[in-house]
């Protein structure tokens, strides 16, 4: 049964491996380059330091990492775990669609053993692929993470990719056993995968744990937000209420200093309901909790979907 399961998903495994290899070909040289920049530009010295010189160093580091980093930051590569997960559902769905299960289920192997082997192979391959994916990008992002914090690349690092790929696999299997037409099932599953990811990323994730908030005056440094996930940050009054006045206020409160620089009179600003900054954020220290919650969310959904598919397949007449 092991040989058969492998033989039947050989093509899909090769496709997934090729996709990952392509990413590696692009991002391994780029990763080496970024790591070099990190060393040569002495970025390490400026981690968590908010001096003017350091903000110059960090800014320069960002600029010199180049266009590939921009493409990466755009989030397009979030599609990859979905593709791999959906692709590895194909061998099972194909067999159900083509009716070759009538061959497989009338050999001496019971339906349960067949299912355990097929699903075991699919899940194993998906986890292996997710492992390669997260290894590549976690490594690639290390210098940037150290400089700017890990929240920016939350979706590509550490354990969450395992949850995502498994989720895509579960969706494709569950929808596949319902509609029984592989092509349609894969399209629908992929659409739902993207929808699920977008929903969690844009709405749900920041609510996993109630975010912290802080209101601080312009002269004070406030909490260190350089490695935090800042959900919102806006001018406010002392109580943290958003500033609702007109820009004219700033004109009125502007004072021309000795060297001709304009600066805002703090007392004047406070009187007009401004002068403070209010930030809502998740601190850097919560990164692992969030990774855990997100992985459990997608991984848990994946297990439910896979269990549903298995139940349907066992009951198939």
């Amino acid at each position, binding site marked *: *049964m*092991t*040989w*058969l399961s492998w*033989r*039947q998903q050989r093509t899909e495994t090769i496709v997934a491996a090729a996709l990952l290899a392509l990413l590696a070909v692009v991002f391994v040289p780029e990763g080496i380059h970024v790591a070099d920049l990190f060393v040569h530009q002495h970025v390490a010295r400026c981690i968590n330091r908010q001096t003017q010189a350091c903000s110059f160093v960090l800014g320069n580091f960002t600029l010199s990492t180049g266009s590939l980093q921009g493409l990466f930051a755009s989030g397009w590569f979030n599609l990859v775990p979905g593709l791999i997960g959906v692709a590895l559902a194909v061998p099972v769905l194909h067999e159900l669609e*083509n*009716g*070759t299960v*009538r*061959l*497989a*289920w*009338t*050999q*001496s*192997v*019971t*339906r349960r053993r067949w299912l355990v082997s097929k699903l075991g192979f699919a899940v194993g391959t998906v986890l292996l692929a997710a492992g390669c994916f997260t290894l590549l990008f976690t490594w690639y992002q290390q210098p940037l993470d150290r400089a700017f914090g890990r929240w920016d690349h939350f979706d590509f690092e550490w354990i969450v990719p395992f949850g995502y790929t498994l989720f895509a696999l579960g969706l494709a299997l569950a929808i596949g056993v319902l509609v029984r037409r592989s092509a349609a099932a894969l399209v629908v599953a992929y659409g739902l995968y993207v929808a699920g990811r977008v929903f969690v990323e844009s709405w749900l994730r920041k609510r996993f744990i109630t975010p912290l908030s802080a209101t601080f005056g312009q002269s004070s440094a406030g909490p260190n937000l350089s490695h935090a996930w800042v959900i919102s940050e806006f001018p406010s009054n002392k109580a943290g209420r958003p500033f609702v006045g007109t820009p004219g206020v700033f004109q009125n409160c502007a004072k021309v200093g000795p060297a001709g620089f304009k600066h805002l009179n703090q007392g004047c600003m406070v009187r007009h309901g401004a002068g403070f900054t209010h930030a809502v954020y998740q601190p850097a220290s919560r990164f692992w909790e969030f990774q855990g919650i997100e992985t459990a969310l997608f991984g848990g959904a994946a297990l439910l979907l896979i269990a549903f598919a298995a139940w349907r397949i066992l009951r198939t*007449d």
Partner: protein
Amino acid sequence: MTPALETQGLGRRYGSQWALHGCTLEIPRGTVTALVGPNGAGKTTLLRLAVGLTSPSAGSVRVFGLDPREQDAEALPRVGFLAQEHPLYGSFTVEEMLRVGRELNPGWDDEAAHARIAELELPLKKKVRTLSGGQRAQVALTLALAKRPELLLLDEPVASLDPLARREFLQSVVEAVADRDLTVILSSHILADLERVCDHLVILALGRTQLVGSIDEIVASHRLLTGPRDQAEDVSRMHDVVRESHAERQTTLLVRANGHIYDAQWTVHELDLEEIVLAYLGQDAARRREAVLS
């Protein structure tokens, strides 16, 4: 000895439609049974129930006394099944298909499988999807035979084959039966396909069994009677009337006789198997017409 296949009031419903209903039969070991009936009579459903691909909605099915669905680990190795479309993995080579058989069946006879493929001159390295329909059927049959089942179920095995491939295929089945202790059930909607190789017959129509028995016994017990119309009722009290047609004074009855018919007023004709089967299927057609009209 427990029969190879035994069903008790077996039924399978799809939605509100019974594909098979109240099917009770017993197929003794070592027989070759033709399962005959029009399309949609429930032949495929019966075979699928016997191999556990489908679960019953009513009644029970046992192969060698085992429930094919609940006791699949014990029952599956003893039953071979060949679905109508001869499903095989199209992207596999013939050799790889044989490996599938080897990996999935503890009782697999690898030597016999390879010998059979060689004898049929099937190319081992060719992909299954490039083979002709007849060749595919032979590969599928090789798989089913090399599993060394005790009961072999063949669902419309020759329907998709040309006459030559049909002959070859059935010849293979006959040889397999001769080789060892094997019970075979073949289904078809055309009896002529199977008559040559079978010794038992099951007629399914309208989702029910119409006739079960050995072909010799069936041929021996069915008679065509011609006689006076006013005495037709007396005959039907004694024997099972399968079909009747009336002229003005004369009646023709096709009966399954319970005992000897000796009434001098009736002329008795013997029937061949095909006439008998047609009578049962004609009965089915008549009932279907009634069902439509009512």
